[in-house]
């Protein structure tokens, strides 16, 4: 069984940090990620781009509704995730629209940050 670990922080937390705090936090993330990797349990995981880069897809009566931004309804929380590698947002949205959850919930499509290897 696999688990997804979702990290929620208040907006602006990262930006509010000093350079030093950021470096130390990054160090902790690298260490934590290393520990998962060394334990052989890491399957996928990455920081996401900020929420203002999100697009939301719904399918109702077979018709696709695409909207700008996150699905900001407090009752719905993230329930699972796929990471796919395609060239463009349009392809990603096509895949998102085929996820069964899109018919009753919403699928938020967000680009993933490519983290450079530790120097």
């Amino acid at each position, binding site marked *: 069984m696999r688990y997804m670990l979702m990290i929620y922080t208040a907006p602006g937390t990262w930006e509010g940090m000093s350079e030093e705090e950021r470096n130390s936090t990054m160090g902790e993330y690298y260490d934590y990620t290393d520990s998962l990797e060394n334990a052989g349990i890491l399957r996928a995981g990455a920081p996401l781009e900020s929420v203002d*880069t999100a697009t939301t897809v719904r399918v109702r009566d077979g018709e696709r509704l695409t*909207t700008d931004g996150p699905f900001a309804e407090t009752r719905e929380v993230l329930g699972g995730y796929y990471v796919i590698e395609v060239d463009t*947002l349009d392809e990603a*949205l096509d895949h998102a629209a085929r996820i069964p959850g899109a018919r009753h919930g919403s699928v938020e499509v967000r680009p993933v940050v490519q983290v450079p290897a530790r120097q």
Partner: protein
Amino acid sequence: MTGGPAADAIAAVFRSEFGRAVAILARVLGDVSDAEDAVQDAYAQALRRWPETGVPDNPAGWIVTVARNRAIDRLRRERALDERRAELTRRATERLMTDPLFDSTDEIPDERLRLIFTCCHPALNREAQVALTLRLVGGLEVREIARALLSSEDAVAQRLVRAKRKLRVAAVPLRVPAGDELPSRLAAVLAVVYLVFNEGYAATSGPDLLRDDVAGEAVRLGKVLVELMPDESEAAGLLGLMLMQHARRQARTAADGSLVLLEQQDRGLWDTAAIGEGIALTERALRLRRPPGPYAIEAAIAAVHAEAPAWDDTDWRQLAALYRELHAVSPSPVVELNRAVAVAMADGPAAGLAMLDRLEDSPELASSHLLHAARADLLRRSGRADEAADAYRVAVGLATNDAERAFLSGRLAETTR
């Protein structure tokens, strides 16, 4: 200053070629922001050079060539500054030097359709779509967009930065959607253009009822769409609709700036050439698609008014039928309201009032002056002056536009005299 073109003339040439140049550069660079920067660099160079050399014979070719060279310069500087991106910038530079899109500067391929669909991508909200389309396709400056949208320059600038960042970070492609995807994507493009038109045609707030340059900009975008998609019925319908509404602009305001309703307009002031063009486009839209879409039907409605030599000669039955058809493809209480007005003209105010009664509970109309103004007018025509005055009072309170408020207040005064 020599005898060369003034800054205004250079700005006008650039504005008309801007979208075409950005579209080509974006195609090669893969990023609309970089393309915009390159074309903006070319503009700065034109402002320095053209006053002495004059406008080149082929301004589009000149702009694309200079923008391409500026983009290569920028990439070289970037490569020197950022080694990690060396490979990326090297590849982009190579594309700029060898891409077949640049084979001939005499005949610049038109890539604007991709750019338009990207600017109106559903991953962007409507406000971002509008601002981006006016900036990248229309070539308007930030301050011009702010004026058109009655927004602040800061707000527009931020909206543009955020939209362009999303296009880049989320990798929104420059492509024309095909198949099942096309109708809804095209509808978004047409909605953006019509929204710009309406901002100019009936400003939703503020002192000016008409802002011709904004509506004119929408007409220009509409012409680009029809040129690029000659077989799309709705594109032709939208342009026809805008041309016929725009053709009435001289008659729509009085010398003192007050609103003149269609009924009172001096039809001699209508632009007959634009109406002729609008009617031809409407006929084309109706030929291209059966049953017609909402823009084609709205254009047909505008054509019925345009073809009537006087208000009393209007074919109200035809209008009522067209509103019924419009309601079937695009249901809305505003359409029903217009149908009620047409029915009242054809069959007398009582028939129209009965239809308006059924719209009383519509939440969409509750906060608008439209229903009350229409009701007031039909009551007035029925000789029910007291009830008409009450309805005019409510309508005056709800109107958001100074000219419309002044008109309704005038009617109220006449009714209570």
